[in-house]
């Protein structure tokens, strides 16, 4: 592990601020919420990594579970009491995973995920040719020299709900008259979650592939469906030579409202769930709220834990694909659904295809389909009936 990390790892006091949001309502670390052992909180993880580096414990199956259950949601970064180390917490967890990946000592689910990414280029083991399938029938051009590239990403390209969300978004972009195109089978995974899972080599390779494609095609501006891609393009690619203007789709839609997009009414109470990679990772809390707030009839509810204190859906850091967190009522996605219900909301609005699927599953697991459902922001705009 980099000395930047090993030099500070002993500075964690394990005082437990990292378990809670800064507003203290409830445990806000998905791994700790699920397992409840001190070892699964960020502080425990820090001490165990240090013990591992010092040879006091070995990288057992349990150790791997502890490391890979971190969903990289950065609640701990937000809440940690020590300003000199807080920013590095998640980086340290990712670096430790990287060491495990390099040693080939990883949980089977992670191995399978990384293998699929290497072999198939996507976690679904689906053929590359089907990457553009989501766009069928929408009449969307391939990217040539349009102003924007619309990047759907793995979940937007292959997951049922992700595809639905990509379609809604693309329809809105089209109806706003935006000049954009897609890459379809020429698209490569953004690599964000592969990096978070500790496979830096593969993440770099995917990034370089994308950068090359983008550059060859003259892409300057990118709109991403997923906050994960948004994060990779914005924060990882520049260091690898990829300089692009990057937008999350909610930012673009927000700028169109009342001008290029006129929504209809939406008579429902809606709770917005902040995706970690849009919120805590990139400090975009307002674009999605402004969109929802501007829809006539829509009552925007805030969950107790919101913005920088939002509870993660549990899908980050590769967990969406590896499912290390497993099942049970203490899954953060299920806790999140209960929290949304307590606001009286009938709809949970999401801005990330991973949150979409995680929360949609959780609504079913909680058995509350009759009381609440999940919808993405583009979907809500479409449902409102555009003028």
């Amino acid at each position, binding site marked *: 592990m980099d000395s930047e990390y090993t030099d500070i790892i*002993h*500075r*964690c*006091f*394990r*005082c*437990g*601020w990292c*378990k*809670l949001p800064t*507003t*203290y*309502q*409830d445990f806000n670390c998905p791994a700790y919420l699920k*397992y*409840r*052992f*001190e*070892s699964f909180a960020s502080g*425990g993880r820090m*001490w*165990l990594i240090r*013990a591992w580096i010092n040879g*006091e*414990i*070995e990288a*057992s199956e*349990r*150790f791997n579970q*502890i490391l890979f259950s971190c969903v990289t949601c950065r609640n701990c970064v937000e809440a940690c*009491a*020590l*300003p*000199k*180390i807080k920013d590095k917490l998640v980086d340290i967890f990712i670096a430790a995973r990287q060491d495990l990946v390099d040693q080939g000592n990883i949980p089977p689910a992670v191995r399978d995920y990384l293998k699929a990414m290497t072999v198939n280029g996507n976690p679904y083991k689906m053929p590359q040719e089907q990457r553009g399938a989501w766009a069928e029938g929408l009449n969307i051009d391939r990217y040539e020299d349009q102003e924007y590239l619309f990047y759907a990403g793995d979940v937007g390209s292959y997951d049922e709900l992700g595809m639905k969300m990509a379609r809604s978004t693309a329809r809105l972009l089209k109806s706003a008259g935006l000049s954009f195109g897609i890459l379809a089978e020429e698209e490569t995974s953004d690599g964000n979650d592969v990096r978070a899972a500790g496979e830096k080599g593969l993440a770099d390779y995917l990034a370089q592939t994308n950068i090359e494609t983008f550059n060859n095609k003259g892409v300057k501006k990118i709109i991403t469906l997923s906050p994960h891609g948004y994060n990779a393009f914005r924060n990882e690619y520049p260091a690898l030579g990829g300089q692009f203007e990057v937008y999350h789709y909610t930012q673009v839609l927000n700028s169109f409202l009342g001008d290029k997009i006129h929504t209809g009414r939406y008579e429902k109470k809606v709770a917005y769930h902040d995706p970690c990679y849009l919120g805590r990772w990139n400090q975009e809390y307002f674009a999605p709220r402004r969109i929802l707030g501007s829809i006539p009839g829509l009552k925007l509810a805030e969950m*107790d834990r919101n913005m920088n204190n939002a509870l993660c859906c549990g899908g980050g850091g590769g967990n969406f694909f590896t499912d290390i967190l497993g099942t*049970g009522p203490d899954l953060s996605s299920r806790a999140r659904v209960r929290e949304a219900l307590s606001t009286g909301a009938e709809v949970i609005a999401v801005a990330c295809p991973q949150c979409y699927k995680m929360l949609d599953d959780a609504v079913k697991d909680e058995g509350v389909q009759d009381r609440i459902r999940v919808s993405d922001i583009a979907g809500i705009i479409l449902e409102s009936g555009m003028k």
Partner: protein
Amino acid sequence: MDKITERLAEIVGKDYVSTSAEERFIYSRDQGVQQPHMPDYVVLPDNARQVQEIIHLANNDSIPVVPMGGGLVLSGLTIPLAGGIVLDMKRMNRILEVNESSHYAVVEAGTSQGMLDAYLKKHHPRLKHSLPDAPPAATIAGNIAIHGSGHLSQSEGGFHSEMVTGLEVVLGSGEMVKLGSCSTVPGWFSRAPLPDLAGLFLGWNGTTGVITKVGIKLFPRPRFHDVLIYMTEDIDIAPDILFRIIETEVAEDINYALSPKPDYLNGFQMIVINLVANTEIELNMKKKIIRDALYDYYKTKESGFMPLPPAMKGDFLEAPQKALSKFADVKKGGGFEYVGAIMPVEKIPDACREGVRITDRYGITYSLGARIIGRGHSAMFFFAYPFNRADTQDIEKVSHALEDTNAAALKLGGIPWKTEVSGQKLILEQMEPQTSSLMMKIKSLLDPNGIMNPGNWEVK
């Protein structure tokens, strides 16, 4: 899986028992300088029944049981000195009842300080409980089990253990009992007028039983809040200044602090006075009352109030104070431990001198200070020493300094609070034999097999 693990898994579910090296490692140590010792099992109960079954099992097989809340006591009281089970109580964190008119809440033992505060803010915004400055993950039961103190200890009646209105406890022998009004009528409003049995579990470091529910007093949460800081170089005037502030009856929390860092505060003592009020007029009036009370002092210009622009008040108005946790990074090393000694207020100056002397001796740095408990009935004086976790010599020095400090606190006429086992020994040695013998009789009555947090409060 061994038999006991299997049994434990039957009780709490297999996901909530661990014998893995990782959990045994983490639960073998706390944030302070005490030596680690591995537990054999880490168990996370969900309810009082499960706790009871675990205690029965432990009694049958003579397995030590160490109840643990946040595990933030710093002095090793949740380190399983004789192995056995660490009972992490934090899954039991339901808030069961809030009675607004009678100003109390009933919570499960593992409810965190932060959670109760957030819950009250949302559902009962006119009420609050007394928060310690421990990290918000500390638990209600863990705090009262050691006679903790906090933001309302000055104004609202002392140690948090004094704010307990009732308890549900699983004794070391396995019986489950209720103490206080809840033992006789449905409400959890008071320990009086019954014989006060709650005291058998307060200050005992979990050696008499496992607390499963706590009734705790709530107090008004006024809307306005401000802070004044009084600064002096003369250690000896502190008790009188404190007396005058207490005399006004308008201060919520009063803390005293002395620290060599930052350098511009080295040698200067700060008395931090927190004020609350329901209206701005009331707040301003209270500020004036406090200032007037100290007029004789500040008119000489030998001491005075620090001007505090609003932007600089933030940290002082926070509860719990994050700044205290930050102290762990003073030596760039993620650690500190303190001797908190409960002592008479007039001993504060001598305690300061003693703290400086001890830290000079070991060449370590410090933060000294005190929180006033009750209307000046005593003070919780802390001698806090940070260390670098990666530096064994530093840890060694701090350990010795803490031992010396425990002895010094007793010599000063104070008593180390939530002290390490070595400090407990010092106390027991100095205690009247009839008293310690009564303690031991009570322990063997409540915990006949000596399974509860062994090593603590023991006379050999």
